[in-house]
């Protein structure tokens, strides 16, 4: 049975609906208050974090760190409770804690405004005007919180499977309708979705463990996991942490292996098929070497728009299909990786090079891809290529370009194709010629300036300047940027040639 996430606003009837639903279905009930209590026990001052977010102007480094810890605690609490049986969770867009987990029913409750206002007036003993202001402020604060925590607009109804408007519908009937929907095969767990949930749980537990251990509490670590393999990335200045991380995570349940990679930054490499002996691998690896970056592999199989089924050709997935009512959300990662194990071999090659940032597989629509990209990892570059392999070359090029444009709106790092990457890494003939031309022009300009100093200074501050001061302004406006651009390009090419860019 699914995990039912009911999202609502205070005094809007959502919590009562969620409790009623849990009672009718016989599921366990968990609400945000319980999650917050556990977070507080883990040393995360959620109340203070909320106040800071609302009252303070900027999202600060410490707040981001606390947010990530809070997300880890919330994910672990929900996953642990759901693992013990079925679950109804009431909170604020909590389903975003489990992206990629298929057996999730996402419900948004829209309150009846007049009834909500009356409830607030009655329970908080507020006059109408103050109650209205209270509701406006609370809703705005919650929207800000959800934007901060999940980076989504809570009002975006496309992020829900179902919206229940309580204007006409009674709580009793709304709960009854939800009961029927929750039992549909579309929301049933599959081995793949349960495995995805286990990965989320493992990652969350690792984060919590690292956050609670005083040796690693202040470190800037990124945590990824795939098939029980945890990949922890740390920055070079925290190299002394490397031997401690395995100690801290030593006996974490569900963890098969721990990989620690030192990296100044991260490169995300998205493809459908990976090969460790390919030219793209060499180029990504070369760039990672220059930048001191970790490379994270994301194997993506496009499956049309979100929710559309992904064809499965491997046996284990076919077995899943029978239990899902014909609809499947994702594939087991190993299955989607292909039988030739090229994905795993590429990942192993990166591990050997000391540049692995972890690897995982996702299938489905674009939103699924975006959901699989971690927000807490500071990527410097996203390389996108070799996708839509079942399409013709022309369609593949177009669709890859469109996907890159889509990702530009969702990922802050620059998105490059392999061809772009190649041109950034290597000096082409055209670039060498441009560099020579820039160098020659710089020499010419410097010769002109220093061999005719008297004339130049006359224009800049002598008699000629007194006659026409604007000429000096024009000269400066033209020469200063031209020399900078030419010399800057020359230096950039030289650095690239020296592989020091």
């Amino acid at each position, binding site marked *: 049975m699914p995990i039912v996430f009911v999202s609502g606003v205070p005094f809007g009837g959502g919590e009562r609906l969620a409790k009623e639903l849990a009672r009718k279905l016989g599921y366990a009930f968990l609400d945000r208050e319980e999650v917050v209590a556990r977070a507080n026990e883990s*040393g995360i001052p959620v109340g203070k974090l909320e106040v800071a977010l609302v*009252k*303070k*102007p*900027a*999202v*600060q*480094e*410490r707040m981001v*760190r606390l947010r990530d810890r809070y997300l880890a605690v919330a994910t672990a609490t929900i996953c642990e409770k759901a693992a013990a049986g079925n679950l109804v969770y009431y909170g604020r867009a909590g389903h975003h804690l489990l992206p990629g987990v298929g057996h999730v029913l996402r419900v948004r409750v829209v309150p009846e405004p007049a009834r909500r206002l009356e409830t607030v007036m009655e329970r908080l003993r507020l006059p109408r005007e103050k109650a209205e202001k209270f509701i406006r402020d609370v809703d705005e604060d919650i929207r800000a919180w959800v934007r901060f925590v999940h980076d989504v607009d809570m009002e975006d109804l496309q992020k829900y499977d179902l919206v229940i408007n309580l204007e006409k519908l009674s709580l009793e009937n709304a709960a009854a309708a939800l009961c029927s929907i929750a039992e549909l095969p579309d929301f049933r767990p599959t081995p793949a979705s349960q495995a995805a949930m286990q990965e989320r749980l493992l990652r969350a537990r690792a984060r919590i463990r690292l956050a609670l251990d005083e040796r690693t*509490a*202040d470190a800037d670590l990124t945590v990824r996991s795939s098939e029980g393999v945890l990949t922890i990335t740390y920055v*070079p*200045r925290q*190299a002394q942490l490397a031997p401690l*991380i*395995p100690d801290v995570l030593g006996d974490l349940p569900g*963890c*098969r*292996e*721990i*990989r*620690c*990679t*030192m990296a100044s930054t991260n490169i995300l490499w998205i493809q459908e098929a990976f090969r460790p002996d390919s030219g793209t691998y060499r180029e990504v690896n070369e760039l990672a070497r220059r930048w*001191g970056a970790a490379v994270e592999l994301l194997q993506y199989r496009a499956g049309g728009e979100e929710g559309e089924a992904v064809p499965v050709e491997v046996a284990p997935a076919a077995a899943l299909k029978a239990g899902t009512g014909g609809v499947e959300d994702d594939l087991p990662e190993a299955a989607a990786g292909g039988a030739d194990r090229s994905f795993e071999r590429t990942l192993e090659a990166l591990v*050997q*090079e*000391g*540049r*692995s940032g972890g690897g995982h597989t996702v299938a489905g629509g674009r939103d699924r891809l975006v959901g699989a990209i971690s927000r807490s990892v500071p990527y410097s570059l996203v390389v996108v290529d070799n996708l839509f392999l079942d399409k013709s070359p022309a369609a593949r090029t177009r669709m890859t370009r469109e996907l890159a444009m889509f990702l530009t709106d969702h990922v*802050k*790092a*620059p998105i490059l194709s392999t061809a772009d990457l190649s041109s950034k890494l290597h000096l082409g003939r055209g670039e060498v010629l441009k560099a020579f031309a820039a160098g020659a022009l710089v020499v010419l*300009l*410097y010769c002109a*300036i*220093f061999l005719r*100093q008297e004339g*130049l*200074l*006359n224009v*800049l*501050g002598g008699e000629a300047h007194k006659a026409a*001061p604007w000429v*000096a*302004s024009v*000269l*400066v*406006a033209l020469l*200063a*940027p*031209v*020399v*900078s*651009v030419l*010399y*800057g390009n020359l*230096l950039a090419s030289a650095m690239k040639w020296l592989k*020091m860019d």
Partner: protein
Amino acid sequence: MPMLFGDLFIHLTWANALALVLLGLVGGVISGFAGSGAAFIMTPGMMNLRVPGVVAVGSNMAHRFGNNMMGAKRHAGLGNVDKRLSILLLVTAVIGVQIAVWINSTLFKMGGGEGHEGGGGAMSNLYISLIFIGVLTFVGAFMLRDAVRPRDSKEGSGPSMKLANMLSRLPLPPYVRFPVADVRISLWLVLLLGLVVGFLDGTVAIGGFLGVPAMIYLFGVPTTVATGSELFMAMFGGAWGAISYAYQGFVDLRLSCLLLLGSLMGVYIGAYGTKVVKEVLVRLVASSIILLCVVSRAVAVPVYLRQLNFLHFSEGWEPWLKGVSTAILFAAGVGGAGLVLFYVVKATLERRKVHSTLLVRKAAADGRVS
């Protein structure tokens, strides 16, 4: 050595040309490392090479105009520029620059101290030095205090946010939300900062040096966005300042070109340093250099006061004071740049030593670590 065209331009020799390139290199390394302009070392450095203060400021602005353009382009590519913030800052920065150019030109034309360092612009030199000392003492001390003070372990190593939080509580509507920086700031505070940054940029060419920390500490803007947005604004503000100074006849393009030769290269080296050195150390090195520059300028102030007959002491002391001032400045610059280079080399060597990947097999009945 006689000056060219009255008291405006210095005679270029191989020695002072090389010194200017080195000054650019040192400034570039520190600039790339500290993430803010290095006019705090270049302007007094040029003054120590007998360039009149106002020409040092004008030429520095011209040199930075192009530099900022390259920096802004690079930051824009990385998504570090909040154009809304830059444009609003620019609105009043242009006014600030114009006020500064007018004051500097007027003071320079008032003359004073003919035949001494900085030609006849002793009044202008004194004014520039005093502004420099006042502002950078505050900025340097604040950064140093922030870098060395003990921290609550839960607070992390980021910059202090106390001032930002205090300002955010002031009721000063209207507020503007800046999408890239992800902050909400009172419009009046932004405009005021623009004016101050423009004024300081036009006065001592150190506007960016105040603007970046101000955005970080006062507005809570993330460091990378503060640097990118300031560069974007400074590209236009600097252009306006350089053009204005050129119109007044206070830009020596030869000096700008020589500075540029060293500074662009230095920026590459300094920027690499930030990847491998702790942020606290970056702030510590930057604040120490700033405070040493302040000391250097303070040592030179009595010379200007004597040239203006505000202070009386033997003329024989002047070369000593100027020598000490120059020595402190170059020691700060070369020491700072050397320290950055030292850390870059050290970190590179360390990185080779460290096993970059530890593979821990937990398969383990035996719990071996491989």
